[in-house]
């Protein structure tokens, strides 16, 4: 049978506020356990939550960025369950009336087509603390530093049809929240994480299959692997006459498999009800518009502008706009360079990206600044050096931190454009390779490349390629 995969994602993005959503404690990552938990986070008797206005503003920004409805009135509700890392015995979340409803995110598929993924809702809630099991000799430790960190939970429609689509959607939301400056997007530290609801159904069927909820997907790669594993598991199960059980499954990245955590029967009855400690959150249009006025240029808009203004391909524009820092870096290069947008795009997406990846450096910490990169490309544009030499110069700039001109001068890499110098080199190569010369002249055109290579070698790659081509044609022709 031909099966269709149906996936919906629930993304949890920690909002980059300085203090927690209902208390004044700091949210910075990495503090000693429980150093950032105040009496409210610890759920002391008598304490009350007070909503962080900055968290609201960030959620509104997100809603506006995905063209969703920002609700004029939303309600905080209590989700009740017992767990040591949940000090109040309930999590404050939004249930029936979330702050953001509807909305959509466009993703680019592998074939280049665009697909619109619906966002059902996004709601504000508080994060739980962490239970620690390692190094405690059979005991469980509780760290409440994370308890009360603001989150938005972004729930997609079940419109994703493959693990690749799910990852594309996740990356797009990841890009978006970082553009908006509302989440640092750090998946290792758990500031951006997701659960996937996965089911399969016979292609053409309308009814959704029974779904499993996958948890513990803390990298893009794991999301893809876990979904693919789960889809295969479900298809195999159904094909052999079995049934998929509605359950929560944990992804084990070491073993590359998902395994059952709890079934629907064991699921909690969360007894949601409106939190009487918090008033309904009322937002007026003036406020919403004011927040809207602070939205930055969004990735799709920026990519479109790069295509129109710089004549870039959709692919290049997409890569450059995947992060705002990256796009900004590129634009500084183009500006300094005064044009040559395509050359700049190729270098940023090509050689520079290679160096960043190789050394695991973020664009913001690039060892070659945008200004210095433009300095290098100027020398390519004015033919002082060739594109090939430019690669070596960039490498040297990366290692030494010097400007392009300094390296070019110090190493004598200035391109040779002087005709007589190149002619001398050509003549020497011709004299040293009589057999090849004869063969070429006898019609073996392919040997042209051989001569180019030899002359380049003789000039340490500094011969201007265009001049060399021209002169070599003339000389070899006899």
């Amino acid at each position, binding site marked *: 049978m031909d099966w269709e995969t149906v996936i919906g994602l629930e993304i949890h993005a920690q909002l980059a506020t300085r203090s927690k959503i209902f208390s004044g404690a700091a949210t910075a990552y990495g503090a000693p356990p429980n150093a950032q938990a105040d009496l409210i986070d610890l759920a002391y008797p*008598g*304490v*009350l939550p007070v909503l962080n206005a900055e968290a609201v503003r960030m959620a509104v920004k997100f809603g506006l960025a995905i063209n969703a409805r920002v609700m004029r009135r939303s309600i905080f509700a209590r989700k*009740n369950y017992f767990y040591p890392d949940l000090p109040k*015995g*309930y999590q404050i979340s939004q249930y029936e009336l979330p702050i953001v409803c509807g909305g959509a995110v466009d993703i680019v598929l592998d074939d280049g087509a665009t697909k619109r993924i619906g966002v059902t809702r996004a709601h504000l809630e508080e994060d739980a603390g962490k239970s620690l099991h390692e190094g405690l000799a059979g005991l469980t430790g509780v760290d409440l530093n994370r308890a009360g960190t603001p989150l938005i939970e972004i729930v997609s429609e079940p419109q994703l049809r493959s693990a690749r689509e799910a990852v594309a959607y996740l990356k797009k939301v990841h890009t978006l929240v970082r553009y908006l400056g509302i989440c640092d997007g750090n998946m290792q530290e758990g500031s951006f994480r997701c659960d996937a609801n996965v089911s399969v159904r016979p292609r053409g069927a309308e009814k959704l299959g029974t779904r499993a909820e996958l948890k513990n997907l803390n990298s893009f790669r794991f999301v893809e692997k876990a979904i693919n594993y789960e889809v295969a598991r479900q298809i195999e199960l159904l094909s052999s006459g079995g049934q998929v059980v509605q359950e929560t499954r944990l992804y084990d990245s070491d073993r590359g498999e998902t395994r059952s955590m709890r079934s629907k029967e064991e699921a909690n009855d969360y*007894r949601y*009800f409106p939190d*009487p400690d918090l008033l309904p959150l009322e937002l007026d249009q003036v406020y919403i518009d004011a927040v809207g006025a602070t939205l930055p240029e969004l990735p799709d808009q920026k990519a479109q502008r790069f295509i129109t203004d710089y004549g870039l391909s959709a692919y290049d524009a997409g890569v450059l706009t995947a992060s705002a820092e990256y796009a900004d870096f590129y634009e500084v290069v183009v500006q300094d360079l005064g044009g040559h947008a395509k050359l700049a795009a190729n270098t940023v997406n090509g050689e520079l990206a290679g160096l960043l990846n190789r050394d695991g450096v973020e664009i913001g910490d690039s060892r070659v600044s945008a200004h210095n990169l433009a300095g290098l490309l100027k020398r390519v544009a004015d033919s002082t050096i060739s594109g090939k030499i430019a690669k070596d110069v960039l490498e040297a700039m990366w290692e030494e931190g010097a400007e392009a001109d300094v390296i070019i001068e110090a190493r004598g890499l200035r391109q040779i454009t002087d005709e007589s110098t190149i002619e001398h080199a050509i003549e020497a190569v011709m004299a040293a390779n009589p057999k090849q010369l004869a063969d070429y002249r006898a019609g073996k055109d392919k040997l042209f490349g051989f001569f180019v290579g030899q002359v380049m070698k003789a000039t340490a790659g500094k011969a201007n390629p265009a001049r060399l081509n021209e002169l070599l044609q003339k000389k070899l022709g006899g």
Partner: protein
Amino acid sequence: MTALHELSVAELSQALRTRTVSSVEVASAFLSRIEQHGPGLNAFISILREAALAEAERADARLRAGEAGALIGIPIVHKDIFCTRGEKTTCGSRMLANFVSPYDATVVQRLRAAGVVMLGKTNMDEFAMGSSNETSYFGPVRNPWDLQRVPGGSSGGSAAAVAARLSPAATATDTGGSIRQPAALCGVTGLKPTYGRVSRFGMIAFASSLDQGGLITRSAEDSALLLAAMAGFDERDSTSVELPVPDYAATLEQPLTGLKIGLLKEFFDNGLDVGNAQRIRDALEVLREQGATLREVSLPNLPLSVPTYYVVAPAECSSNLARFDGVRYGYRCENPRDLLDLYQRSRGEGFGPEVKRRIMTGTYVLSAGYYDAYYLKAQRVRALISADFERAFHEVDVVIGPTTPTPAFELGAKTADPVTMYLNDIYTIGANLAGLPAISVPCGLVQGLPVGLQIIGPHFSEPRLFNVAHCYQRETDWHRRAPPGYV
């Protein structure tokens, strides 16, 4: 000269500011009475002699420095539901029997800042759940008018302490009548302010949408003086209201001419003791003589208030009390086998039967499949009851009726049947459901036991309630009568 313990807050304030007495003398006098009579009444969970005398010395220093605050050096006792920094705050429960709060509730903090001296913490029903003070882990409080009778609850310790002249005033809380009912049964004045008027920060939550901190005093005048210091917006409580606090004392003497009083038809029902009914009618006559007019008003949905309350309050409490899990503070069972055992035994051993009953009721009404039938429906009825009051306040300025159906009952008389006990709050719950301010003032004795007159007003009408209550107390002396044996 009148004994210090017979003086009102207003009179003590005068004496302190004229330096006729010192705060240390006042505190010492009341502490002695607490030590003498407190144990017999079981009104106190903590007596804070040393801390109180130190606070009194600081108050005296402020007075000597010429500070003008009306409350500097006035003693008070706090219901043990208010968190007090560095002192035990038990909420009447084994769960918190050894809990020392690291912070002051806003109410405590504001009164401290005003110079009020805390003498001790009063006994109460466990987590404020009860109408007789018999659910306290620390044992029942006795009514100073008759030691075999209950003082009412849940603020029974506060009411008994003020009635027995062990403190001129006490803080208290009211979720379904927990200030007004014990005030009525002990013959003192009990004010439940408008929901949102007094910060709930640091007041251990029972039912968040109903809980309101207030006062038990001997007179409305004293209540007005203290509320001015307690009330007001608190950025730490999102449900507190950002409205200026009026000068309550300034409008106490306003004439009652033209005051329109609504007589709550539904309150004069079969459950009302004939003696109580007569005292209420007598009190109304006193108000009428001062120029008030009476008319009957009907709140048709009010009879539904008890069942509505016993869905909403347990639902909220089942969630509010989830934090008492034996993990971070409070009671923890011995040698838990695993997490579930820790939860089950810590809560099973730490909570008493009434608290458990309400947690279970609340958990049930919020459960999937029952939520609509109970919680949601109760919230709808609650809205209807609020609307009934709102309609009534288009016609009248205040509504008046009895605070309780009967005078104080005997210890143990109603403990066997929770529903009979719950019906004790039948006249008080309406104000909580609608968030309205209400005051209970002593209006006579029935067979030697005090009964209360309840005045309910629109939101933020505390000035009017104090005014009506004060004008009544100016013409009567019920609020001046101390229980025999405590004069």
